[in-house]
């Protein structure tokens, strides 16, 4: 094949040039700050989806709706369920957060039985200012939640600023979530 274009020496450089381009991309890809397994949220910097959830009967806390998240104050929205083990692991951290009163914390109870959720909160403590009940999981779909627990940071205008997948680690809370909340408060 290549024999027919022997006259054109540049043609023979082509494989090396293509390889050089690929190496350029590889070099970029080795950047240690890059984590290829992280899935970015499609909803970051978008307004929270419209929803209106009933309160969790038996806790006395009000329900949650879109308007509650755009009253000028930054909020953490935590998706949880009583059947979810990682939520139990995360819970003490949320309790501490509520005691320190550094941020408003609300919750959406995901695909849960009312009695189980109330029992869970009464035995482990209830850190939430408001709790909306999403029994069908419909609202969670609108939020792009892939599983519980997940936590969102919402700014005062009701825009999603950050999505955290999985239980929050204390380090992540101190390094990422709280600094973001503080910068939003300013």
């Amino acid at each position, binding site marked *: 094949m290549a024999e027919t274009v022997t006259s054109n020496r540049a043609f023979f450089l082509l494989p090396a040039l293509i390889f050089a381009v690929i190496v350029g991309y590889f070099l970029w890809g080795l950047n240690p700050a890059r984590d*290829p397994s992280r899935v970015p949220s499609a909803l970051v910097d978008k307004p929270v989806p419209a929803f209106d959830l009933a309160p969790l009967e038996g806790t006395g806390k009000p329900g949650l709706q879109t308007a509650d998240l755009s009253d000028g104050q930054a909020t953490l929205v935590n998706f949880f369920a009583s059947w979810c083990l990682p939520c139990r692991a995360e819970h003490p951290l949320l309790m501490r957060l509520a005691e320190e009163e550094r941020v408003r914390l609300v919750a959406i109870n995901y695909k849960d039985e009312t009695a189980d959720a109330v029992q869970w909160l009464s035995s482990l403590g209830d850190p939430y200012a408001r709790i909306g009940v999403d029994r069908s999981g419909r609202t969670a779909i609108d939020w792009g939640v892939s599983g519980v627990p997940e936590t969102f940071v919402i700014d005062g205008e009701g825009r999603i600023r950050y999505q955290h997948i999985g239980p929050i680690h204390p380090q992540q809370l101190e390094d990422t979530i709280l600094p973001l909340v503080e910068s939003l408060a300013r």
Partner: protein
Amino acid sequence: MIPEVGHFAMILALLVALVQGCVPMAGAARGNDNWMALGQPAAILQLLLIATAFFALMQAYVVSDFTVLNVVNNSHSAKPLLYKISGVWGNHEGSMVLWVLILALFGAAVASFGGNLPPTLRARVLSVQAWIAVGFLAFSLFTSNPFERVFPPPLDGRDLNPLLQDPGLAFHPPMLYTGYVGLSIAFSFAIAALIEGRVDAAWARWVRPWTLAAWCFLTAGIALGSWWAYYELGWGGWWFWDPVENVSFMPWLMATALLHSSVVVEKRDSLKVWTILLAILAFSLSLIGTFIVRSGLITSVHSFASDPARGLFILLLLCLTIGGSLLLFAFRAPALKPGGLFAPVSREGGLVLNNLLLATATATVLLGTLYPLFLEALGGGRVSVGAPFFNLTFVPLMVPLVVAMAAGPLLAWKRADLAGVLAKLKLAAGVTVAVGLTTLYLERGGPVLAVLGMALAAWLFFGTLTEWAERVKLLRVPLGESLSRARRLPRSAYGMTLAHAGLAIAIAGMTASAAWKGEVITVLRPGESVELAGYSYRLDGVERLPGPNYTSDTATFSVTRGGRPYVVLRPEKRLYPVQNMPTTEAAIHTTGLRDLYAVIGDPDGAGGWTVRIYHEPLVPWIWIGCLVMVLGGAVSLSDRRLRIGAPTRRARRATMAKA
């Protein structure tokens, strides 16, 4: 002490490789026979040293020496012996030792059996081989030392990833590495030929058996990997176009192209530049695969734990090896003399078409694999490229390839009579139409592609048989003469027939499993049953059983067909407590024409269990086909013409003719 001996042997191997890389090469340039002759003992010494290192590491695994960090991280005293041994290469550091061991094995094989090579060529091949070894030994020693000690030693190890504790995966990496690394010989021959400035038929004949051996191992390794994915991951699928699968598939495609184009160099002294480029690219893609798997560049279900420092080191190695060889190609290849001319419709023309399609297919897979990285680098966000992309691009490229494959071997060299060839294929065409129509009849409203796929498989299978029948003049001369012709046919001809027929069988399996796979996912309580494709699966119960280093929830399914007992399936869900990781062990019953496949999932907490049942028609044919392909390669490899030593006489003449 033994780990230190292993470590020391590896350092010595690096030094020997440095010597082997310089002295024979310089000897070949200066015409110094003694310097050139150093290559052989050096290659064998290097093999002995690396084997010492490898077995030192294996010893640490077998006796569970938990003062060695690598053993702590990847082994456990309660693990069965087979997985203690396979644990040696079930991790990044150990697998690099296996990699260089196989490299040294191939180098020593060239040194021992390459007696018929011209001394300069052999010296240069061994030197190039040694430079590859220098790169990877240095990588191993400086960034991933497998012999690192740990103090104080822990009481027990962290165990091998349970998914890897499987007989299929114990042998998958050695096979695949032998294939990858075997391509280094073709690469070294190509570089040596570029340095010498000469490629001829004898060169092609020397390269071919090595490429063929590498191809056989690569085929077997990929088939074993896909079989493992099929029965171990419990999704009932056998190929996922995952990046790590793709990086093993690309060298295979290139090696296949190389096998075919080197035939043209051997028989017709043509396509030389292209064949050299293929030899370089085939090994380069193996190296890129090694890089992608170990650098964490692209996410995949089964890559090694990544470390950017290692990634940078391998990238540097890639630049030197691939970049250097491609630059050498750019400057030296134009000087290679073009060979014989041929008409578009000819055996050569057919092989060029084969090469074009295989090269395009490789480029497609490469693009699909790297596209997410390209897009992300250009700020386009994160995407993953999956089966839909490859089905749209790769499959259409394979259709003309398979169509041409049946006719190609019937074409004559230089100039062929297409009409005559097609006339010979009438019978095969008839069978193809019949298979297509039967599929259409059985199918009724299913995917059209299934009809096409089954017809293609039939076309290739019967076209290949036609070629064999033509060669032995079946039915045109008395049967006795046909038989004696069949006996006299060279083994390489049988190799081709088997390999092509094997691909046909595999295509039928792939098509059927893609088109007619049946699947139910449901919750069953003990005593309940579910129907799929005429078989009824009753869950009898689930019991907890202990294993050597796991506990197992073993389910029992009674499968009945038409009310009569058919088979009992016992899938397991295992929990490995050391890594706290569950694995599924699917239960598969195969009849050769279909697999009944059952997986037990999690309990629903109310007495029921999630179960997945798959009905997989013709799926065993995929691996039967691969086995036949490997068999074809092995038969061809045993051909007298390719046996080491056989081409001596003619090779000398070819060299003399040049001189």
